[in-house]
């Protein structure tokens, strides 16, 4: 399946292209190291992670709900991770914009070996979506499968969550 010379040439070509300026959209490539990086960015602080996919109808219900919630709670620490392949990048960006989530820290699976990326987040997660993780300020983790709801978020967050 491999032609090593071609692969080498290609990887050199790609390496040279990577020095170009980054694109304007907010999606960052999610690799096996990214989850640790996200946690370290939030060291000592509570935060919420929402995993979603363009191929998951309930995820869009959740994104709409979170978009609304964030309008009322603009400082809610929320990180989104799309489990989609890069082929769905434009669509994911479009959906996030539709739900008013364009400004939220957002990542997208950057390797189609998705089992390995899922494992780096939580070895006990079976891939069902939407999936949420809450880390309190000491980074004790809680998880939830299915659409998030207000009472769950109020249980999790120490801060007040406002609604209209």
């Amino acid at each position, binding site marked *: *399946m*491999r*032609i090593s010379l*071609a*692969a080498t*040439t*290609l*990887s050199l070509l*790609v390496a040279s*292209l*990577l*020095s*170009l*300026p*980054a*694109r304007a959209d907010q999606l960052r*490539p999610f*690799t096996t190291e990214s989850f640790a990086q996200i946690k370290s960015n939030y060291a000592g602080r509570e935060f919420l992670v929402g995993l979603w*996919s*363009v*191929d*998951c*109808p*309930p*995820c*869009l219900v959740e994104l709409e709900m979170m978009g609304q919630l964030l309008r009322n709670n603009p400082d809610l620490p929320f990180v989104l991770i799309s489990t989609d*392949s*890069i*082929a769905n*990048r434009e*669509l994911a960006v*479009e*959906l996030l914009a539709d739900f008013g989530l364009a400004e939220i820290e957002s990542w997208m699976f*950057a*390797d*189609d*070996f*998705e*089992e*390995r990326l*899922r*494992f780096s987040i939580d*070895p*006990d*997660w*079976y*891939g*069902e*979506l*939407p*999936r949420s993780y809450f880390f309190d300020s000491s980074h004790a983790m809680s998880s939830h*499968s*299915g*659409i998030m709801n207000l009472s769950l978020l109020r249980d999790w967050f120490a801060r007040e969550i406002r609604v209209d």
Partner: protein
Amino acid sequence: MSKSICRALWQAACSLGVMWACASAMAAAANCTAEGGEVSVHCGNTPSATFDDLGRLWVAFVQGQHVYVSHSADLGRTYSPPVKVNIEPEEAEHNGENRPKILVIDEESEHAATVLVSWTLKTSARFTGEIRFSRSTDGGRSFALPRTINDDELFAGHRFESMYLTESGHLYLSWIDKRDLESSSARGEDYVGAAVYYAVSHDGGASFSANYPVAAHSCECCRIAVAPRGNENIAILWRQIFGADVRDHAIAELTPAGKVLGLNRATYDEWHIDACPHHGPAMVQAANADDYHLSWFSNGDAHQGIYYASYSFADRQARHVYRVDGAAGAGHPHLALRDGVLHLVWKGFDGQSSHIRLIRSFDAGASWSEPETLLSTNEASDYPLLVQSPDGLFLSWHGEEHGYVLQAIPRQSRALPDIEE
């Protein structure tokens, strides 16, 4: 690695300059996706396979904007040049739960065989699609213009199709359908989940019946398993929403005239989830014609992991419920009954590698062998499928590392597994 994904990756890398740590994709891209790169079973996506009576392997797969068919007369060592099923480009769904399906109706001359292909056409980004069908009546050299089988003419979700041909020659297509969700929404009413519909061809795919409803409130995002029931009916197993939010499984018998018989709940996992599991079940008919072997995934209150059970239409009971693999990362089982031995394959992940595992039962699911690992990979890979030729049982699988794999599953007698040390 798919051409379309790699093309997108290239666009991202070249025109947008974003760094995507996608080493495996880059490596495979060199072989499979360069400009003018080959179209083949190895470079395509989500292959399905079947054997004809002559023992030739037929594979359908998606590459770029086309569904292709290729066949092999030497068990996968060499393949015929892939033939486009849809001449006009269109976007066929291709992910683990969504793949083109292929069946072959043998004729006396191998050049006259009828090749049947179905797939889901993605019509928008937001879960809409059409059930597509095409056939070749010249041994796979050319295919008829694809047609849409869902007859509601709605821009709505029609996805996750399954195809089955009975001994009597009735060709069934069944799928997940959102027409009732659409009409409920139009009336301002809520509708939980989607529905299951089907259509039947009585003439080898030349024409199809109207669409028949099977059940309301199915899960929206899992494949449907199909097995024969008698000479002309089929049994189907699908993920169904019970009550407000339990996504377990239902089973039913479908007739060529549109009747639904024996509809019943088949699994009691109590998976309360308002989410997409993306894990559809598997099913084969048992030696006892009223009984069916089922395998599925759940993360419910009662069951977590890959499970097996037998289900009898005679007394509407499930038996021999068995946890195949409770490890995180286990999923996507497939079943085959060969020479009286029940085979179950599934995919596991240990944190680094994916493993395709096999267990056997010599007593119709009452007990199972220890798992053995058939293949492993450190790169992305598809779900495992089992296919049968006139001569044996094979694993059909696809991954970035191996390309398309057809691997014989050795026969094993009942005597072997006991005391080996």
